[in-house]
């Protein structure tokens, strides 16, 4: 199995920086690439997507241009859980968001910010 490519999608630069620093301490998700909205993430995937690739995406929900839900809709059209694993990362503790996340097969887990090293280690 190939090493997964790791991505962070979040419009908040501070949140992005925090997650990057936490991921850096964790060996499992090396060298993450970051995007500030779902559209950028989607465009990157459309250019480089391979069905044999492995992609792990830490995805924020509330973003301008294309939010997390819209990205999930678009990505579900060409990918499944064998290629893309999405961790929804949000500051929301809203039940409805939590329930909605379960309706997308790409979503492996719903993570409430802040993300800690323990949480990342639990994902393995």
């Amino acid at each position, binding site marked *: 199995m190939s090493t997964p490519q790791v991505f962070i999608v979040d419009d908040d630069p*501070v*949140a992005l920086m*925090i997650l990057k620093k*936490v991921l850096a301490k964790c060996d499992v998700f090396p060298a993450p690439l970051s995007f500030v909205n779902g559209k950028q993430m989607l465009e990157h995937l459309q250019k480089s997507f391979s069905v044999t690739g492995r992609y792990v995406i830490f995805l924020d929900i*509330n973003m301008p241009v294309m939010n997390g839900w819209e990205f999930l809709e678009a990505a579900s059209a060409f990918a499944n859980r064998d290629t893309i694993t999405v961790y929804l990362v949000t*500051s*929301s503790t809203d039940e409805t*968001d939590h329930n909605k996340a379960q309706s997308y097969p790409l979503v492996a887990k719903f993570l409430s*910010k*802040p993300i800690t090293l323990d949480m990342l280690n639990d994902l393995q």
Partner: protein
Amino acid sequence: MHRDKKKYAIVVVEDNAGDFFLLQDYLEETILAPEIIHLESFKALEEYLTDTSKAIDIVLLDLSLPDKRGEELIKEALNIIATAPIVVLTGYPDFSFAVKSLGLGISDYLLKDDLNAATLYKSILYNIERNKNVVKLKESEQRYSDLFHLSPLPMWVYDTETLQFLDVNLAAEQHYGYTAEEFLQLTVADIISEVTDDNPLFTGTAGESKNIFRHKKKNGAVIYVDIRSNRIPYNGNKAELVLVNDITESLTYLKAIEQQNKQLMDIAWTQSHVVRAPLARIMGLVYLISDEEMPLEEKTELLPYVTQSAHELDAIIRKIVKQSKLILPKDTDV
């Protein structure tokens, strides 16, 4: 012969002494001790009834008195005699008039020539007993009429074909501002308000909404009413009995509460999405800074982000407090 031992108070209005004598004879033949009150004119009857508070069992009325006769006599006698049955006695057989007088409300119509002790006794006994039921029925009718007219909720009866009001109660008059006479000139369509609004009860398909109507009062004020109705035959018309419950005030409260709920939900959404964003950042930053392995310069670099997020959180909380004050009643302490 066996004679009835009951005490009957019998008023006999008869000006002819011979006829009266005969009647008295017949009465005493079948009744042991009849109390016979003999009066000779309508005027005497009127005076007797005004003066006495004594219960009368029956009135035997001769149809041709010196001061009044015939139909006029019957009508006026019915007016002044409250509950006792009236048996008309006459010397002239007039079948159609006999039927008519029974229709007016007298209890029996006897021909003097056909009279004997037994027939008179039978008529007296039958009519006293039958009248008891008539009186009961009248009281019962009155009671039901009172239930309608004195109901604290507006009620009316309307013709389901012409929509004309057939009867309205006092509460309806007071609530809608029309007098009973004015109501009877209107149809149900006249009190339905044409004003449209966005009240969900009128656009929704909720099961109950079919009972809710918008009415207008005489002064033009629009009210919302919950209508309950039942079919009822009314003087030969196909009619409906309608009970009206004004729910305008409840609806106003409901609207206010729904609006408040929406605003509270907005606040809850903000809590979850907006408030938590800077808080989650602060928590994340503090988590990073707590790491003993992190060099001091790097920690110092992170501190401004903590301050910035704290200020952001502060601003959001102030905004929420302000919002909450707007939706809560003025006199509530927040």
